[in-house]
């Protein structure tokens, strides 16, 4: 029994680490590298999840009806959602190829929708000072959630919506396999970002953060960079949203709140070290383990905490932010100069 428990704890930690790595690494590009106050990070995650709940079942249903002889008939998808998804799931459990194809298409669609939403969301304030941008992004994120909660076809409104299980073919290893896939995708995202931000592109972002005027005097279009970064960052977060929805098997708009998907990523980035991708991994690791532990031992904690343990999460969040800002604003691993390829040049400089 303890072995099983430890395994499910490990699985949960790995899952959240994968998801949060994707979110926080993209936040780090926006906020850590470029200094964009993206207080609407959850909009990317929500965009991915809503794309999954809105789009994946339609495609799956279409393929099912085309490929099998017995089409599923329904009158109201939102109401008959559970029935339809369970029939799709039965079919998908025997066809890993189609499942993986659906996974790929869902991820690509999420990336596209995320990029578009990021662009639209930042458009009104992209030319203004960063405080305006922060307020606007926070507002847009909140509104996306409100729409997702009230417009039923997107995510089933107050009841939420089930999404097709694209990992069912793995049978009893469903959770292990899906976590493996998520961690692999997170690793790819990490490597892509690490590589991308080590190029001159990353150095321009840092330069914009440190001195906008100097950069624009050197002929860089700051607004164009901001647009590109917000679109890419939101698209990446949408990837995490889609994976989260597919892993949990359902989408409900209330799960996409500011605390979980905007402020926790901020704290993770700030603790690890804004502008340092290795620091991001560290920050994600520390907080995912801490929060999973709190969540797992909730009942035991209740004896020691004189209030409902749910609020401990908020307290921990706020106190950590202030403590980091006061004591070590650069984070555990501070930002380092980007390593360029030519060590030879440095040798020449020193001589």
């Amino acid at each position, binding site marked *: 029994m303890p072995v099983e428990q430890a395994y499910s704890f490990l699985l949960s930690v790995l899952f959240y680490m994968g998801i949060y790595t994707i979110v926080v690494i993209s936040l780090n590009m926006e906020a850590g590298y470029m200094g964009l106050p993206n207080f609407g990070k959850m909009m990317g995650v929500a965009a991915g999840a809503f794309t999954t709940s809105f789009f994946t079942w339609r495609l799956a249903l279409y393929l099912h009806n085309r490929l099998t002889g017995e089409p599923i008939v329904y009158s109201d998808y939102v109401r008959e959602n559970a029935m339809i998804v369970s029939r799709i799931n039965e079919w998908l459990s025997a066809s890993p190829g189609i499942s993986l194809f659906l996974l790929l298409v869902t991820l690509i669609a999420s990336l596209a929708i995320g990029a578009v939403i990021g662009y639209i969301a930042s458009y009104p304030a992209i030319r203004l000072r960063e*405080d305006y941008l922060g307020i606007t992004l926070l507002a847009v994120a909140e509104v996306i959630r409100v729409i997702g909660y*009230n417009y039923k076809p997107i995510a089933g409104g107050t009841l939420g919506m089930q999404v097709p299980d694209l990992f069912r073919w793995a049978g009893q290893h469903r959770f292990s396999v899906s976590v493996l896939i998520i961690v692999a995708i997170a690793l790819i995202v990490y490597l892509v970002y690490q590589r991308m931000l080590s190029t001159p592109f990353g150095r321009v972002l840092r330069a914009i953060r440190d001195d906008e005027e100097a950069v624009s005097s050197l002929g860089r279009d700051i607004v164009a960079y901001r647009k590109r970064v917000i679109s890419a960052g939101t698209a990446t977060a949408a990837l995490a949203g889609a994976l989260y929805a597919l892993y949990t098997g359902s989408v409900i708009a209330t799960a996409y709140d500011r605390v979980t998907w905007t402020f926790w990523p901020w704290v993770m980035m700030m603790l690890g070290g804004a502008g340092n991708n290795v620091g991001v991994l560290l920050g994600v690791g520390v907080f995912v383990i801490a929060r999973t532990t709190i969540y797992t031992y909730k009942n035991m904690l209740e004896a020691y905490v004189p209030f409902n343990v749910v609020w401990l999460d908020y307290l921990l969040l706020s106190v950590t932010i202030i403590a980091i800002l006061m004591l070590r604003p650069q984070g555990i691993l501070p930002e380092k100069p980007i390593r360029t390829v030519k060590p030879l040049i440095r040798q020449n400089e020193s001589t």
Partner: protein
Amino acid sequence: MIPPIVEDTIVYSSVLVLLSLGLTLTYMTTKVPNFAHATISIVGSYVTLTVLVLSLISLAREALISQADSQSFYRLIKSFSFAPLHYALFMALGFLLGSLIGVAQYKLVLKPLSQRGANVVQLMIATIAVDMFLLSMLNIYADKLLEYVVSKANELSSIAGFKVNLGVQTRDFILYSYDYSKTLGTQRLVIIAPIMAAALLLALSLVLYRTKLGVALRASIENPSLASTLGVNVDKMYTLAWTLSLGLAGLAGSLIPLKYLVNPSTGQLFVLSIFAASILGGLNSLAGAVIGGVLIACFEIPVFNYLSSHLGISSAYRTVIPLLAMALTLLFIPRGVAGLNWKKLFSRVRR
């Protein structure tokens, strides 16, 4: 007889004006949008609830001492209505508590951080942390207050010999019935809120434009270094601005539950309307904040009501209105209504 929609607009715009005025004033001093502003006003709402709970309990105790039977007891509890003293008490306490939190936020969080060289983004995330902290405190307080109410009700039940229920909730509460006046045929708030807002505006403008203190405050906002050279204690002035602003927020918040449903997280959505009002006003003008508050209230209530009844838009999408107003303002008049050159506009219209 005033139609309810007009009442709603009057009350909502009075509250919004007080809140956006305070937000603008704090923004003008420290140049940080305070994301905790709305939650601090909800602290004022809980002051009102606490005043109500304490008065109800003492009323119930007196009734039981004079040996009321269950029927007359419940008639008495039901007919309880706020007296002038209650209004004065919760507004004063709301102001006091709000201003205390404001001073604490400025002195303990924002000032030390900006002395350590924190940038705008870091200061913004710090105000978010304060918001989270207050949110968790409010939630814990709501739990504790409910426990208190239940224990007191049990205590009273044992005295009375019948089951005592005070009919008080600490989440999703609305205190409409305690504010209803039979002689007016409506809520007293409809008169109190606009009078309070007007009186406070008058007082604030007298202080700002007719006293030496006001001159010093405006000087510290316009040019802090010059003001301090001339012997103005800029820090003191900023502290004063934060005291006044969040005092106003607490006072406005103490009126909110008389008409609107309140729970600890009410501020999370309300903050969008406050920001929209301030941004529409230009974020740098107190007169603009007043105009912005009234305009946003008009967009959110009569205009949106017209839209929802004629176009069939669900009332749940009201949150979209402040966002739209904010986005349009930023796109077309980024300096807000206060930044418009009215003379030029009029001459253009005349031609």
